[in-house]
């Protein structure tokens, strides 16, 4: 067991971990931040995406020890300071970008990383960026729409119903 410390959602956190503890397990079990999900064991689904020093990272593929000292943001840290939903989260609700909610934290974190890099993405750019995030429920239509809306763009470009 070794001690690891990092900043998670703006607060410094630490815990005792084994060398093989993955970041996702540290977040979920160590810190009780269960919003980050595990949907696969081959680093393919993106349910576990968090931000490490501002970059989207699949937390199932990094050891907690390797991000010691880093700034980590999880879905729990994406709301407004008053506890209301942040812009991207709100767009997902407004445009029905989620159903079962299991892929959702990873989708929101990926969307935030995309918009940080590319504030006005096209539909094709959004679809391409989401390559690493699988959603089995929504058929992606409303996720794409939500991200468009969160970027302040007109969503009627995404085929109307």
């Amino acid at each position: 067991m070794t001690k690891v410390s990092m900043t998670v959602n703006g607060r410094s956190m630490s815990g005792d971990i084994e060398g093989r503890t993955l970041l996702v397990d540290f977040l979920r079990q160590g810190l009780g931040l269960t919003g980050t999900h595990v949907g696969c064991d081959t680093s393919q689904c993106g349910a576990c995406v968090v931000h490490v020093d501002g970059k989207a990272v699949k937390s199932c593929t990094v050891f907690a020890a390797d991000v010691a000292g880093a700034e980590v943001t999880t879905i729990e840290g994406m709301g407004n300071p008053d506890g209301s939903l942040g812009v991207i989260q709100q767009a997902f609700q407004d445009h029905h970008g989620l159903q079962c909610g299991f892929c959702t934290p990873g989708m929101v974190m990926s969307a935030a990383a995309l918009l940080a890099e590319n504030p006005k993405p096209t539909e094709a750019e959004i679809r391409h960026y989401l390559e690493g995030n699988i959603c089995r429920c929504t058929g992606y239509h409303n996720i794409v729409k939500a991200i468009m809306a969160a970027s302040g763009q007109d969503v009627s470009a995404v085929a109307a119903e």
Partner: protein
Amino acid sequence: MPKDHGIGASSKRREDVRFLSGRGRYTDDMNLARQAYAVFLRAQVAHAKINKIDTTDAAAMPGVIRVFTAQDFSGVGGLPCGWQVTDRHGNAMLEPKHPILAEGKIRYVGEALAMIVAETEAQARDAAEAIVMDVEDLPAVVDMKAAAAGGTLVHDDIGSNLCYDWGFVEDNKAAVDEAFARADHVTTLELVNNRLAPNPMEPRVAIGDYDFSTDQHTLYTTSQNPHVIRLLMGAFVLGIPEHKLRVVAPDVGGGFGSKIFHYAEEAAVTFAAKELRRPVKWTSTRSEAFITDAHGRDHVTKIELALDKDGHFQAIRTETFANMGAYLSTFAPSVPTWLHGTLMAGNYKTPLIYVNVKAVFTNTVPVDAYRGAGRPEATFQLERVIDKAAREMGMDPVELRRKNFVQPDEFPYQTPVAVVYDTGNYQATMDKLLDIADVAGFEARRAESAEAGKLRGLGLNCYIEACGIAPSNLVGQLGARAGLYESATVRVNATGGIVVMTGSHSHGQGHETTFAQVIADMIGIAENQVEIVHGDTANTPMGMGTYGSRSLAVGGSAMVRAANKVINKAKKIAAHLLEASEADIELKDGAFSVAGTDKSVDWGSVCLAAYVPHNYPLEDLEPGLEETAFYDPSNFTYPAGAYACEVEVDPETGKVTICAFAAADDFGNVVNPMIVEGQVHGGLAQGIGQALLEGVSYDENGQLLSGSYMDYAMPRADDVPSYVVDHSCQTPCTHNPLGVKGCGEAGAIGSPPAVVNAVIDALHRGGITHVTHIDMPLTPGRVWSAIQG
């Protein structure tokens, strides 16, 4: 003006706030005090005799609490099958024992052989590797036709791999054969409905708990139907009466059918929790999900369509091999039979139909219902053979369909395959489709694609499904070992707020929002005055859960019935308070008034009177305002529609790109259009996934070749287009109070034939006329090979 609340409004989903802020409560998010962890040792070969399982070393590993093998479960039952099919000769299907842990023989890769319980999951995993297996490999049977022909038996004790040989309608067989002999034209198509892995994004989890002081068992599980699990596991497997067993399915991350079934791990952890007097938790990995969650589809079919010279359908004859896998999963026998054969009339007037299904055991994962369950298989073969017939006869595929539609004035319509369609208007959905898909503009788009060297094609088809399963007496006659009603309790609180406890279960469908919309509308109060509770047998009435697009049609009907009982009682209270006759009381906008007067009393005051009955007709009426209702439907519901897919095929590579997809559905009345559209979108992606990408594949030794997301292609955002969907054609269901039909499966049922029809159309328009069919998934390799001939 679209409505802003109540029935018909696209109310935003209240459940989203917790999911979007990371505060969902999925089973794996739960951890109980003193919890131990279970890991299952799983079979690595598909078929073998087990000589010995030596757990001595494993049991001595650090942290190991106990290792369980089949012997430990000798006192409990096997996993029950919930549906008994009777074959064409009147005999019951063959029903092998389905043990919790393999007994004597391994029958598929992934079968659980031993359960290791340890202080940590890592310790349990390490110990699993220390178990020494002494097994003798046997040849595996994977191919269905080979399995049906005999040879190696999956189950030696039942003497055959043929679970049943079902004929429907058996009495029609001779007449169908005669119609074929007389027909002007017969179109024949042999096809495969590819085997799929359902893949809800949340893997299965089960936590068993036991309180010895009260002898209470609790199972937390990722289930679509906690009451069904309680009944099956309690009564048939572990022998625990319902009042000593609580099953909780909290937030569940998708199901698509795969979380209907009672799985071995649920029983194993519940059993172990009592043995060890500790909570025991098991979390599936995705790799484990691929080899343990029931698969879907997997039919091999020959369909023949007989037509007269004008294109009128005369008869349909099919022969299907349906894979059951190694054991009968909970509802497996019903899928290729009653959920498939009864839909073979489609949207058409075909007077004579005969469906033959041979269900076969193989050394593969059990196969059961997956989104659509039987109905996609029926729709795919029917809509593909119609397209082929149109091409052979030189007819327009849309006109051929229109000509054979059950016409709008012919409802209720008795099909030759038992079911009676209550309402529908197939011409209307087809008209709507041609409009929203801009079929008129197709030729211009095709020309544009051609300039870029691409072959563009348009595929259209219809579908019908039977949802809202089901009249209990009917399914009882058909072999169901359960009733299929639904239940709800409507509890009004003293200050007027309402809690509805439903037997339905939401795992993405948004019941917490839509059910509240219905109640708010009925009473005329705000939606936020209504709370929906589901998923816990301790606080919901016995209900059969959510699958088969049944929640609103059956569960919603139970809730409306309970709410009406509440309203009737509230009217009596209002009549007393207003000193008027009950018959004159009207409820509108949350107030009771006396017809023709300005006297009224609001909802909250009536509720308060019910619980503080000072001025109350106590001699005639009990205090309180809470009612429970059960609803057993009198028929299925029949959503139907027409779908269009436009593809581009790259003739150089065989790659298919979906350019556009349009869906015109008739779901009857719609409570929340936003949610309904979302359901269609999700179904379409799964159907497109089946058509182009997904396929479970085994080698001849029964090894799963598609066991992870590296080799099982899930649809991703750039594999699918934006969809154009419409549900404005509405012929309300005539036999449920909301007039709703169900929308959860339509997209997955209607889309695969549209995609394949479109690809074949593209090839034919491009002059590649030798290709009449390509089996799904239409990967570039398959399409390219077909083009090469």
